[in-house]
Structures are given as C-alpha cells and as structure tokens.
C-alpha cells in the first residue's frame, strides 16, 4: 500500500514563560492511501496539535512530516498553503464557514483558489449530495448547526483532496444530527476514495474507522484496529 502521510520523530514544544512545554514527544506513524484513521485522546493530550502538524498548518519543533511524498518541513507557509489546497480537505468542529459567503460560495472557495473549471456546477453537485442544493444561497447564519457542517463536508470534498482531516466533526452537534453527518462523511469518503483522519474523543465515531491512534500526554500509547472491525 502507498503511504500518503508519514510522521517521523515529530516533537512539538512551546515556550511558555520561563519553561518549555512539550506537547508532542517523538511521534512516529504513517498512514496509507484510502485508510480511515482516528486520533483519540483526552483533552490536552496533543491530538489537535498533531492534526495541525499533519495538515501542514504548523511546523514541528523537530522531526519530519511528509504528505503525499512532499516534505512539509522545508516549505514556507505559502508553499504549505499550496499543498493544502492541492491535497488536503478540512472539517472543523465549529464548521468554520466564512460568514459573509453563501453556502454555495463557501463550497466554491477551494476550487476558485486552485483555478478550477466548472466551479459552480461542481459545488452545486456537492451541495446536492449533502442535501442542501435548495439552501445554496443561504448564509451560514441562516443554517442550523447540522446544515452548516454538511456545507463544510461539501467544501472539504470540493477540491477532491487526497487526505481529509476532520477535527471533532460532531463536537458541536446533537446525537441525531451527528449520526447523519457521520454517515454522510463516510459515504462521501468512500465515493471519493479519500484518506480520512479524524481527531475525536468520541469512541463510537473512532470505532467506525479502520485504525485508532491513541495519544496521551503527547505520546502515542496505542495504535490499533477497532475491536469489532
């Protein structure tokens, strides 16, 4: 199987007042194309920091991150932005839709950034897939939480990412809506053949992936398949 993400000896420390705070310590793992992976752990364990490093949102203090055979460590911020636009999709806990853009425009943004063609049609197709074609001209504030996260899903898949990062995708949703969103996420992921990395402390959600990486105190304490898979 081809590796799409490789994390080697990654550590991340922050300078806080007079002492150094190590958030991640010597993390190693790799993810293959098409995998669905959950990173779990308690609050403050470093999972969001790890997601940030994997997605090229931040730089590691030491170690290397290779995404789709591109070493992110040597790239500047703008080059990493280009990598994100080409290969990465995001789903955020608080949806992070741009409040001044309509649902349709939010989905169009990643495509516009890469200068794609037939942008509007592609975005409409995706909105249709998430069941929001009729809400395409609504602003985020006019949508419910679940609807916003579905727009967010459509946006995440719009640029056909090789790797999709989801940070607590159901963290702000009720159980019923969460279930619908998760189903949609996995269905879309299956259709697109995307590699999915989910950061969550929802064990039920983690159990739906085919691999769970558990971290605690900045180190990996387990890297296993869910028991019932």
């Amino acid at each position, binding site marked *: 199987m081809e590796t799409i993400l490789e994390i080697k000896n990654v550590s991340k420390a922050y300078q806080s007042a007079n002492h150094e705070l190590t958030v991640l310590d010597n993390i190693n793992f790799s993810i293959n194309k098409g995998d669905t992976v959950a990173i779990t752990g308690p609050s403050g364990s470093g999972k969001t920091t790890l997601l940030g490093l994997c997605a090229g949102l931040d730089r590691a203090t030491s170690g290397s991150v290779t995404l789709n055979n591109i070493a992110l460590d040597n790239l500047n911020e703008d080059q990493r*932005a280009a990598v994100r636009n080409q290969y990465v999709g995001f789903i955020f806990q608080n949806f992070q839709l741009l409040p001044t853009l309509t649902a349709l425009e939010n989905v169009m943004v990643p495509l*516009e950034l890469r200068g794609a063609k037939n942008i509007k049609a592609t975005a409409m197709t995706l909105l249709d897939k998430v069941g929001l074609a009729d809400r395409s001209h609504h602003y985020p504030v006019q949508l419910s939480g679940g609807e916003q996260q579905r727009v967010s899903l459509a946006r995440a898949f719009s640029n056909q990412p090789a790797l999709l990062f989801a940070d607590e995708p159901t963290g702000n949703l009720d159980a019923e809506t969460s279930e619908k969103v998760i189903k949609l996420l996995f269905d879309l992921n299956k259709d697109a053949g995307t590699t999915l990395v989910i950061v969550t402390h929802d064990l039920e959600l983690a159990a739906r992936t085919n691999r769970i990486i558990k971290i605690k105190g900045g180190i990996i304490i387990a890297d296993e398949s869910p028991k019932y898979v």
Partner: protein
Amino acid sequence: MSKSAFNQPISVAWLFKMAWRDSRKNRSRLFLFISSIVLGIAALVAVYSFKDNLQRDIDSQAKELAGADLIVESRRPLEKARQKMLAQLGDDRAEERIFASMLYFIKGEGSRLVQIKALQGKYPFYGKIETSPAAAATQFQSGRNALVDQTLMLQFNAKVGDSVKVGALNFKIAGILNKAPGQTGIQATIAPTVFIPLIYLEKTGLTQIGSRITYRFYYQYLNDSELEKTLKKIEAPFEKEGLDIETVASKKESTGRSFRDMSRFLALAGFIALLLGCIGVGSAIHVYIQEKLSTIATLRCLGLKARAAFLIYLIQISCIGLIGAVLGAALGTAIQFLLPVVLKDFLPIEISMQISWLAVAQGVALGLLISILFALPSLLAVRKISPLNAIRASFESATAKRDPLKWLVYVLMILFVFGFTYLQMKSMAQSIAFTIAILIAFLLLMAFSKGLMFLAKKFLPLSWSYLWRQGFANLYRPNNQTLMLTVSIGLSTAFICTLFFVQAILINRVTLSSSANQPNTILFDIQNTQKDDLNKLTKSYKLPLMNQVPVITMRIEQINGKTLAKDTSNANAFRGEIRATYQDSLTAAEKITDGEWIGKVESDTAPIYISLEQGYAKRLKVKLKDKIVFNVQGTLITTAVGSFREVNWGRMQTNFRVVFPTGVLEDAPQFHVLMTRIPSKEVSAKYQGAVVRKFPNVSVIDLDLVLELIDELLSKIGFVIRFMAGFSMATGWIVLLSAVLTSKNQRIKESILLRTLGASGKQVLIINAIEYFFLGVLAAGAGLILSISGSWLLAKYSFDATFTPPLVPILVLFSIVVGLVVITGVLSTRNILNQPPLKILRNEG
C-alpha cells in the same frame, strides 16, 4: 508537486470578488470607519478649491484690484523735478494723499480717527469706487464733498448731506463709501476711509511738516509696451529714492502671496481634521482585522496564500477609502461655496466659485493614500495570521508577531505628515516643528493612556460595587478602546482647546494693556505751539497728562560711512522714515541690555550716543560704537550707538526704536504725543470734540475703540478658525462613534452573557456608561492637559504673555467632551439591550 504549483498566481479578479464577498456584512461598518476621513478630505478640498478660485479671480480681477496700470508711492514729499517727471507719465493719471486724521461729525458732534484719502483724477481707471448713491463716486470731486465709509456713517448715525470737518475745513457728505478698489471689510473696520478732493487738502491745514502723509500717483497706460518702457526707465532711480512701484502684475503677486499664507493655514487646519480621521481609520481597521481572524485562518487552511489574504483586505480598504475620498471631495466642493461667506471680511475681490477638478483630484488621491497608509499596519498583520487559528480559538492575535514592514509603514506615516506639511508651509523648519509637535502630542497621549491603564489595573478599588468595578476594569481589559479613544478624542480636544486658549491669550494681552491706570487715549501730531494750550485743555477736563514725548521724523543716511548706494545688502535700513524721540532718562518700559545709557549731550562737540531697541539694532546690523548718520529733515546728524534697549512694546505708552539724548534735537521740527486716561465714553466724546475743534490737526486714538476693533478682528479670525476647527470636532465625534460601535461589537457577547446570568438591562447600561465616563474623563483630561501645556508654552515663548488657564471654559469644555462620549456610548449600546439575547447571538454568529 512541481515548483510552479507552489507559485501559481491567484487571479486578481478572484481577489476583487472575494474582497466584495467578504465585505458583505461589514460595508456599513467599513463605511463608518472611512467616514472619519470624509470631513478631513472635505475640508482640504474646500480649501484647495477656494485657493484655486481665488487665484483665478485675482488673476482676472487684478486690474480692478490695483485700479491702475502703474502706482508710484512715496512716504515723503517729492522734489519738484520728480513731481514734474511724474506729471508726464501715463496716458491718464490721478493723484492721492493718504494720512490719518480726525473726522468730526458736526451734527452729531462725534469724532474718530480715520484714513483720509485726498484724491484728484479719475482713479480708479479699472473697477470703481462703490458708493451710495453711485454717482457720488465720480461727482464728489466737483465741490467740497466727502465720501464717508459706511461703518462711520452707521456709527455716528450720519446721513448723506450732513457735514463733516477735516482739519480746518467742512465737507458735505456726498455719498456713503461702500467699497474702494482692493479694500477688504477688515481694512474698512480698522481704518475707515474718507475721500475728499485733493484740491482742498492744503486748506485743511493738515499738511504741516512732520505730518505722516503717503503720496500716491496712479497711471493708466493704453499701450502695454509704453508701460514696459516706463518701468525700465524709472525702476532703478525710483528704488534709489525709496519710491515704491506697483503694477498690476506685482499687485497680483502680492495679493496672491498674502492669500497663499491664509490658504496654507486653512489647509493645515483641515489636515489636522484629516489626521484625526486617520487615527480613527487606523484603529478601527485594527479591530476589524482582529474580528476577521477566524475567516482569514479558514481561508489559509483552504490554501489561500498570505499575500493573497493581505491583498483581499487591501482591496477592500482601498475601495472603501476611494468611496470615502470621493464623498469627501464632493462634500468639500459643496463646502467651498461657504468659504467666501466665512472669509468675506478678508477678501478684496468678488470670488466666483467654480468646481476645481484639480482640487477634487488632489482630495481623492490624498484620501485614498491616507486610508491605505493608516490601515497598513493592521493589514500587514493579515500576512502573519496562522491557519492554526481555525482549529484552535485564540491561538494568537493578528499583531502578535513583530514585523519590520510595520516600522517602515510608521516611518512612511511620519514622512507623509512631514511631506504634506512641507507642501503647505514651504518651510523645512516649520514642517519639522509641526511634525514633531504632532508626534509628541500623539506619543504623550499614548503614554498617558498606557500609564492610566496601568494605574487603573494596579489600584482598582475592590471596595467599589460590582458595576463600578466592571465599568472601570473595562478600561484595561482585552479589546479595550482606551488607547484609541484617548489619542483621538484627546488630540481633537487638545487642538480645539488650544485654538480657544490662544485666542483668549491674545485678547487678554491687549485688554491687560488697557486696564487699571494705563492710558486709554493717545493724542499725536501736536505742534510745538499747541503743546501748552492742549495741556491746559486736557487739565480743564480733569484728565491726567500721563506721558508726553516729542517725536522727530528722520531717515538714516549712512551706517559706518556707507550710504544706501554703497551698501545695498542692508537696503532696508535706509528705507522708510524713523520716528525718534529724545529723553534724559529711561522709561519704565525700557531696560538697557548692552552698552551704557547716556541721557544728555554736554556740549556741541561731544559725541552723540544714541540708544537702539535691540531687535531694530539687529535688523540694522550694527554694533555698539558704530557710527550712524541721520538725516533730520535736511540736517545731517552724526551719532554713535551707545546702548541697546529691551522695550516692553506691550506697555501702553509711546515707545521708540531710536532714542536720542537731550541736547540735540530740541530745535528740530517735531510734533508731540500726549497720553491720558479718560474715565468714560461721554467725557471722551466731549474731550475729543473739543480737541478737534480747537486743534484740527491733532489726531486722537481712542484705545477703548481700538480694543473693540481688535476684539472684533479677533472674533472674525476666531470665526474662521472655529469654522476649520469644526471639521476636527466633527471628525473627533465620528471617530468616537466609530470606536464606540467597534467596542460594542466586541462587548456584545459579554453584555448578553451578563444578562443571561441575571443582570438587568439597566445594570449593563450602567456598566457601559461608567466605562465611557472614565474614557471621556481620561481622553478629555489628557487633551486638556496637553492643550494647557501647549498654550502656556506658546504664551511664554511666542506671545511673551502670561497664561492663566481659564477655569470656567475648561470645565465647560471638559464636561461637553465627557458628556458626548457617555451619551454616544450609551445610546449606541442601548438598542442591544432591548432585544432578546438569542437573536443577537444568532446575528453575531
């Protein structure tokens, strides 16, 4: 991934589209931020347009302004040969004598010092003397008639047909003088004019030796080349004789120059309004960008490059800045039509206002430049916003990282202020001083604000009630508006108060001079033969003889053996007449600063040591012991500089630049000056009437009237200043409104949370009111302290006067500013409290 993929350029069209989309819910707010500069731009465009129109009108009306093609002026009688030569110049000619004299209204028995213009000929050749009735302007020369200025006619309730006395002659008022060529309303107020025919001048008896008469000769040339030829011929010899020449071109130049100075002042006043607006724009954009943190971080996660993010907001600010600038230019173009009304008393010509497209273009360019420049420090921070902010709230602030480009922008801002000031003032030193003053004021207010925030944080009294503590603590808590409001409101308060204080200093300075036991009436042109009789008359009215000095008119002939012909570098020293006196001791207003005071010449052969006022000596470029030869009406007197004096010109008494010792000038032709104090207006009117009737050549200056005139003049200047300061005041208020609305957005969630926790709307309102009250007190207090300090420095070092801060106006100004801040703050947050919290939260989301 190929290298080219990393550098894939982003489409400019998309950047514009994104800037448009992103601005959707913020346009009204963005416009409010930018509206801070609208008034500043409007003020500048109005001034620039007015300047352009004025210059154009001066150019087109220059002939009417001068009234003749050539004007020759002399301050002393001309020799016969020169008179003969002057009588042959031009195709048509007119002659005028101008001097100050008393005018006595026979019917009303009132008198006043006026400017007499004894005219002969058809002057003005261009334009006209405006009179009521109109025909009087040309007909008054046909008999013993006078044209009397309209302000005098009103003051003495006189009518056409009444009689006035000038010197020894009575004249019939043939018409009311409404306007003479080139005369401004202010000139007419200060020195009202009375025209009489020149042929009667001699008979008035006002042309004795020593009288200060200006001789003017007006010429019309039908052929320009003739005029050129004449000018070539007369320029050098006339210059040598101290005769002034004025042509239409030189009149155009001199009028334009004086109005350029006025335009510069007005433009600087407008610029201060603009600077205040810039501070408002800068601060508001800073908050705006902070609020955009999440949007920018999300876009960065989606692959937007830092430069592109920066460009999106640069486009937004530029477009809004452009709209603000265009609106400002349009408003300025409308306001320019008010300026001729505001400045009507200072204008010598009719202004025909038109739209100046150059001024509009300058305003728009300036508005665009300034909105970008002052938004740049916040915009540059956009480049530094990390995408991590999208997954981790409050990861870092937009401005946390140090950016050398920001310092470059700060330097550019200072250079901009300096460059703009230099373009107005054309003086390097003044521009540097102005820039430094603005910078110091800015830094002081910043330091003051930070210091107070520190103190508030450190010494917040825990014993206060929760509402007071919360309101007070808002001053230093995150997202506070303390710095911005202190600087913007403080600067506008400082600017407006300083204008007010300086005006008060100037008025006080004059008023002080006339108070208590100081003389309030000056009589001059008293001949030797009239001295004793006038003293008797004065005493008969029980008036004191407070100061009586002889005045001798003279000119400098040589300085250290050099005449004007040999020392052209010091030409001004030889020009003009000097009015000197002689005395045996120093007066209370004089102090020797160098050399030795010698009050008496012991013998005819002893050297004559004179004393010079120190500033005048500097202008003459002379040192102690230098030799100066004076021409005292034909007699040459050699003197040596014996001492330099410091003279208190502010003291109400006769002061002289040149003082001779006694024993030299006693027999020279001279007149005397007498000063007295008259207790009431009634006595003054009676006394002046008696003086004019008995000694028609003696002029009386009523200092109370002079004070009234100065007060009137200062009020008129003050009105112009207040008009321009109004732009700053309005801008200050817009900045305040913008700041308050910005902070409202930041405080809204907190207010709602407080309400959710059980706080009543009234309690939240009180917390906000307390915060804005403290902010108002801080900002107005800082501005006032700055203004009082600045005014004190100006009074001490510029006006040589004392400055006592006027308590009542200070308290009134302070209360107005604080009241405005509180009312604006409370009113803008009130509407939030009337709505359900959930609705607001959803709207904010």
